[in-house]
């Protein structure tokens, strides 16, 4: 579709515009060129997120915290859900953090193209910036909620382990997972507004398919493999391992997760790229 070729035209760059044909490698060059815009998109979303709310950024704490309370009462107290030997509240909270990051990022990316329709029809920039920016905003909420997690660990007298250093990688993993799915959904939503209605359902279903409220040790061994296809189960279990030291990481499960994420992402990027040229006409 579009290629930017650096030409020595008196140092001026030549932009070549033509109909796109076939598959195309991701245009990292133009993404890099527009990195400042990515920064501004993130900055805008963060600034605007808690404008005109009474509680402001406290929401970033309240949401996972209240969910944890509900889970603790229903699953921990009433259903007597096992929690791999750590107190159930921190067990649940530790799973909720990466989950909420994922769910938030997923909904942000999925709605990003339609939500920024006014920009897409008026200005050129690599369209990929929009879903990616939606993704990064969730990290701020995560960081706030993470502080509470550390506080809870002190409260329950749980030691901080060196394995905490794995967290950034797990975060990256969660983000890439939501990007993989989000790219599909955002590109689809340009054409089919059904996505908006399907999304809450997907998210809810996915929550129960992920060992957030329950430990993966509850699942019979022969089904673990299936569980691994869901990348978030690897992330959630990884979080608990890194912070709480529960069980050990199931490397086989992780490997399946990694493969499934990479496939999702590659497919998402290819589909997004194919649809990119029609966004402005359809959105």
């Amino acid at each position, binding site marked *: *579709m*579009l290629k930017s070729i650096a*030409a020595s*035209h*008196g140092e*001026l*760059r*030549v*932009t*070549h*515009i*033509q*109909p*796109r044909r076939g598959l195309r490698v991701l245009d990292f060059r133009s993404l890099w060129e527009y990195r*400042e*815009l990515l*920064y*501004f998109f993130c*900055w*805008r979303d963060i*600034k*605007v997120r808690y*404008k*005109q709310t009474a509680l402001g950024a406290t929401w970033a704490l309240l949401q996972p915290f209240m969910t944890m309370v509900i889970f603790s009462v229903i699953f921990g107290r009433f259903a007597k859900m096992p929690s791999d030997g750590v107190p159930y509240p921190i067990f649940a909270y530790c799973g909720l953090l990466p989950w909420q990051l994922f769910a938030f990022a997923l909904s942000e990316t999925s709605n990003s193209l339609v939500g920024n329709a*006014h*920009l*897409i*029809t*008026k*200005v*050129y*920039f690599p369209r990929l910036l929009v879903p990616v920016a939606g993704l990064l905003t969730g990290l701020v909420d995560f960081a706030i909620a993470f502080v509470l997690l550390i506080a809870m660990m002190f409260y329950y007298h749980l030691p901080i382990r060196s394995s905490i250093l794995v967290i950034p990688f797990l975060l990256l993993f969660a983000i890439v997972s939501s990007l993989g799915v989000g790219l599909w959904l955002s590109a689809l939503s340009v*054409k*089919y*507004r*059904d996505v908006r209605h399907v999304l809450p359902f997907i998210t809810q279903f996915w929550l129960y398919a992920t060992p957030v409220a329950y430990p993966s040790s509850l699942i019979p061994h022969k089904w673990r493999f299936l569980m691994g296809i869901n990348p978030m189960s690897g992330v959630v279990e990884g979080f608990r391992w890194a912070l709480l030291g529960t069980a050990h990481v199931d490397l086989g499960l992780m490997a399946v997760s990694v493969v499934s994420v990479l496939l999702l992402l590659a497919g998402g990027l290819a589909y997004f790229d194919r649809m990119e*040229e029609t966004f*402005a*006409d*359809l959105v």
Partner: protein
Amino acid sequence: MSETAIRVENIGKLYRLGSSKKYSTLRESIMQTLGAPRRVWNRLSGPKAAPKPEEWLWALRNIGFEVKRGELVGVIGRNGAGKSTLLKVLSRITTPTEGFADITGRVGSLLEVGTGFHPELTGRENIYLNGAILGMHRAEIARKFDEIVAFSDVERFLDTPVKHYSSGMYMRLAFAVAAHIETEILMVDEVLSVGDAEFQKKCLGKMGEVTRAGRTVLFVSHNLNAVEQLCNRVIMLEGGRIKTDSKDVRSVLTGYLFGADDDDNTTSWVNSKGQPANPCFTPQRFALVDSEGREVRNPIRNDADLWVEIDGEIEQADTSLCIGYVLTSHEGQVLYWTYHTDQRQSDWPNTTRGPVRLRSKFPKQLVNEGNYRLELMASLHFREWILEPGNNAPHITLVIQGGLSDSPYWMQMRPGLLAPVLDWQSVEAPKSAEDIISARNR
């Protein structure tokens, strides 16, 4: 420097009607996929169902031109001629269906001012955000920040969220950012049509400054005066194709204004396309008639009894409704505006609910011989335009020839926009030259 800045080669853009406007739902798509085998079978077994050509539209076709560095090109054409699509293709918002274009240099495109302004953010924050969206770097915005603020005149409200701005302030700030883009090539679409007259003047001035700096500009506009002032070349589009591409801006614009060889060179207009419907006033007919109400044809003598008649439909009576027309000369100079509400309120003609016919006498022997354009206008006073002159409002043409005066000495057209036959009288003259002087000294 006569290097090529923009080279456009045989560009075409095909739109599917319907699908570009309507959203398809997932169900339709699934049903279509499920129905595919049957369609294939039908195609193989029966005669091929012809694809409906009317579902597709070439918004642009065979567009080719070259713009040299430093040229200021105006792109004009009626609504739907493909101006905006052309700009969208060249600014990479949408891809062409065929052909290609090479653009040398950084492109700034302004399809709208204030793109990406966020109502919750302050003026200061929006300057940065909008600047970044328009392709400026952070350092660049920081460097120009003071200049932008000075141009916009909103210093006092810099830290107020723009949702509290008046629309004028908003536009000023938005344009101020846009005006400070420093790319080699600038593509502008119709952004000057907003804001009050004072601000428009300022923007035009700024645009002029920009163009004198030797940058290449592609300027799409309905504002022909602006095109004439700014551009040294004009491309006229019609039905998605280039109709005229000329450096003789003036004559192209004149031809455009009068639709030189299309059929709207007439003295009457009838609303045949079910065009602008507005509950407060929907125009039905706009015509020149004689004193018996019969439609007249061009050319018309300057001493003829001529009336301008406007028919319309009012569904919802509004006391601030103003209906009138603009008289424009062949050269695009506005001669006057007139509204049915120009006199004392008690003398206003009735405009109640239902069909309405207004008639206004065209001044006899006021304007000179020549071609004039009458453009219908209607508005809710100080609230909104129903028919805005210059924006595809219905218009008719008046050609005045002959009937300049009854004098044997004034048979030919004289210079001047106006040719009024004024009153001359003789009064009792002083006896001598001395009397004149003494009368003055007295």
